[in-house]
């Protein structure tokens, strides 16, 4: 069902955790639906300097969270903001159809975190 890349990110998730006093923080999802994701970022010189996540959810939810932290790290804030839902799925060599819903959350969570950062710094 899951690609090897999904399984890799699921079993060895990157950038797990919380950041104290992050520059931006975004939470999406709803635990009653079985998925809730929080992404924390710090920004330095307009680049994502550090990024961490915490996720309650299935294998796909965890893998997409992990993947998006890798995709975003080191990019400019605008570039990171532009990472779309499909980019994450593609980077993981695809996701099962039924899992598209929860895997979309990763891109949403990152965007929410960036919006949080922007609103604090505008």
């Amino acid at each position, binding site marked *: 069902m899951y690609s090897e890349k999904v399984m890799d990110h699921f079993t060895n998730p990157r950038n797990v955790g919380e950041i104290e006093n992050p520059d931006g923080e975004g939470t999406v999802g709803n635990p009653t639906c*079985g998925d809730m994701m929080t992404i924390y970022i710090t920004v330095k010189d307009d680049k994502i300097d550090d990024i961490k996540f915490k996720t*309650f*959810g299935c294998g796909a939810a*965890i893998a997409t969270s992990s993947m998006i932290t890798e995709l975003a790290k080191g990019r400019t804030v605008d570039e990171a903001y532009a990472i779309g839902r499909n980019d994450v799925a593609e980077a993981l060599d695809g996701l099962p159809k039924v899992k598209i819903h929860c895997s979309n959350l990763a891109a949403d969570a990152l965007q929410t975190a960036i919006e949080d950062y922007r609103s604090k710094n505008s």
Partner: protein
Amino acid sequence: MIYMDHSATTPVREEVFEIMKPYFTRSFGNASTFYSLGREAKEAMENARENVASIIGANKDEIIFTSGGTESDNITIQGIAYKLNEMGKGNHIITSSIEHPAVMETCAVLEKKGFEVTYLPVYEEGIVKIEDLKNAIKEETILITIMHANNEIGTLQPVNEIGKIAKENKIKFHTDAVQSVGKIPVDVNEMNVDLLSISSHKIYGPKGIGALYIKKGTRLQPILFGGGQEKDLSPGTENIVGIVGLGEACRLAKEELEKNISYVTNLRDKLIDGVLNSVEKSYINGDKNKRLPGNVNFRFTGIEGESIVLMLDAKGITSSTGSACSSTKLTASHVLKAIGLENVDSHGSLRLTIGPENTEEEVKTVIKEIPPIIEKLRSLSSIWNK
């Protein structure tokens, strides 16, 4: 591999496979033909029918073969509903809220066709209350269909009492015994049951074959039509290989029943104690005692079941979950909802179902592997706060 998903399916036992073998390529006759090869097939089939009847205390001519538990459930529920309704006997069906989809969905379709269905609650224990059943019965009630053992949480329903009440009220009683036959004693007479569903692949027989006990004199309206096989109720060329396999699986299961019950119960209790003791905020879903010998259904706060199953799978341990995320419909198991779990809690379920070929060593391994997995997933979880 440590296989602990016996409620999903079981391998075909070597002994069962051996008995089946000659019927693939040598004694392959069509049982409805009357020449030697057909008679050979027919004899094997009748011998199997005897073995199936025997494990539930029925007569041979009260057993028909079907393509599985799903067909048995459908033949019964649609068959009784249409027949009795046509005869003007009423349109009310009583079932439980934790039935297998083969019963649940069939009842739902009948509702759309004008039948009335009462879904009895099962409370936190996952067991229907006799009082509720009594209150639900009315003049129009034509069928009570309540499963013997639940496939997810393994709880046992009070089928003997249900049967007694059904009989007193002259209502037909069907039980889906797919999970109980071969694992605990099942006797159609003690149960006062009119119809009982069996599936082969849950008891080390092949997939694609099942049986239905139909008490002598019970009339059903057929739902499939064809060459008249199996009393016009499950037509089609008889699946001799499957039938022979199911028969042998029943024979062996009956022979080893006592031994297996105590062996599997012991493993189950060790597994429950081992995990509950080493993982905080872990619980058992459903009544702790009135459950199948081999069924364990854990609940872990703060994490999601599919990820537990995947991590166990990576360690070579096969398990399952009722979490919404593991279903194609993305809704939590109706069984977990029925025992009152809030959605968040229903996500963290883990089912381990033990069979007689599991060893104490394997149980120890599972007890060792689970805690670090739970800990890891909780450390990732956005809703877990230690």
